[in-house]
């Protein structure tokens, strides 16, 4: 069991390590989104630091979403998912492992970039570590929601745009709780209630997301 899980993880990590340019473009996309805000609202530092949390959260969500197709789409096309569905391990566990591996791989570049971007947007340095923890938890929830939605569109004609459309409304709770935590930190209020809500939302999704993902992957495989 552990051996199979380890094999799954190393296989995914190998694939990701050989497609680093995809991750680079995700990061570049994120930086570009953040760059658009000073151009759109003007470069005044006080305006920017007022909006900094919102800008970072929107950049995080918008840059993760287009890349989420990568978790299952290639494996679905080349038949790897179908092979896995016949294996003795539950498909739910396999898919959860794939999703978590993707999230962990994505975390390193994204968190580094977010740290740099926070400096650029003028967030106070003692807040950045806190913010990064909130971003890590929030991005876990986004990846888990995204795994449901990208598996729903497996085999669709115009998968990419539709899966983005599906993911965005479902990320609203993450956005609300995440932003509230960051804003509470910024104005020296108690961040824990919203942080706990964000963590509980992510934990609920760890249970719920593999079940729904596996259901929709089975549907896609039966076509």
């Amino acid at each position: 069991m552990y051996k199979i899980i380890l094999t799954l993880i190393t296989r995914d990590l190998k694939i990701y390590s050989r497609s680093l340019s995809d991750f680079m473009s995700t990061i570049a996309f994120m930086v570009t989104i953040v760059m658009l805000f000073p151009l759109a609202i003007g470069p005044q530092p006080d305006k920017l630091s007022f909006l900094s949390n919102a800008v970072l959260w929107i950049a995080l969500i918008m840059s993760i979403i287009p890349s989420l197709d990568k978790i299952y789409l290639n494996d679905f096309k080349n038949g790897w998912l179908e092979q896995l569905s016949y294996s003795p391990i539950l498909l739910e566990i396999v898919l959860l492992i794939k999703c978590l591996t993707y999230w962990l791989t994505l975390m390193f570049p994204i968190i580094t970039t977010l740290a740099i971007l926070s400096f650029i947007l003028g967030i106070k340095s003692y807040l950045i570590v806190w913010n990064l923890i909130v971003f890590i938890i929030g991005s876990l929830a986004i990846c888990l929601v995204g795994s449901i939605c990208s598996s729903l569109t497996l085999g669709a004609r115009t998968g990419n745009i539709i899966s983005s459309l599906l993911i965005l409304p479902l990320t609203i709770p993450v956005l609300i709780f995440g932003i509230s935590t960051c804003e509470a930190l910024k104005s020296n209020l108690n961040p824990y209630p919203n942080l706990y809500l964000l963590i509980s939302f992510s934990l609920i999704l760890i249970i719920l997301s593999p079940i729904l993902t596996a259901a929709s992957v089975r549907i896609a495989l039966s076509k």
Partner: protein
Amino acid sequence: MINYLANPRRFLNFFKFWEPIFGIFSLLLIICGLYFSLIASPEDYQQGDTVRIMYVHVPSAWLASILYFSLAISSAVYLIWKHPLADVCGRSIAPMGLFFAVLTLITGSLWGKPMWGTWWVWDARLTSMLILTIFYISFIALSNAFDREIDGSKPASILSILGAINLPIIKFSVDWWNTLHQPSSILRLDGPTISNEMLLPLSIMMIGFFCFSTYIIVVNIKIKLMNKKYNSLRLKSN
């Protein structure tokens, strides 16, 4: 009842009789309700004539939520029993629900401009209604995104059940958060707080809209079933 209607042929036979009745009823009720709401009902002491927007706004908002609820139920029925009629039913409900959700947003903003001084505010009720609209759109998009139409049914069903989390948020948003949108005045534990002269046209419009949406949905289902039959006959004859 539902078991009886689950057979497409019996469904068509049943609604051969009931469909025009729903149509005529909806026409009569909406005309009658419009008379009562636009002419025969009193002005609001605060809002004046603009309160008459309510007679379209409230029924369409209710129907948008009720139709989403029935969409989620028919999706669940489709996922559990794999009944083809439930799929057709869901596909026919979604455009109607989208229509009412958009109607709610439009009439709401028309009402909001004179009353609140703004077309739109980002409070909980309005935002959750907008999300409902987006769920309708994504249901329609996802159910039509596949090369074979039937492939889209199950993913779209899962999506619509996922989106049903939004319904209680819409219903209770005015109680949970302090919103500009007024709290509900009809479905309350301590009875409606609306005066009877306004409740009457509102209920007439409500039932009229309900009959109207049922009529359109049944016609939609009929068209889709006939299309299916036509396609299978054409395949047979080839």
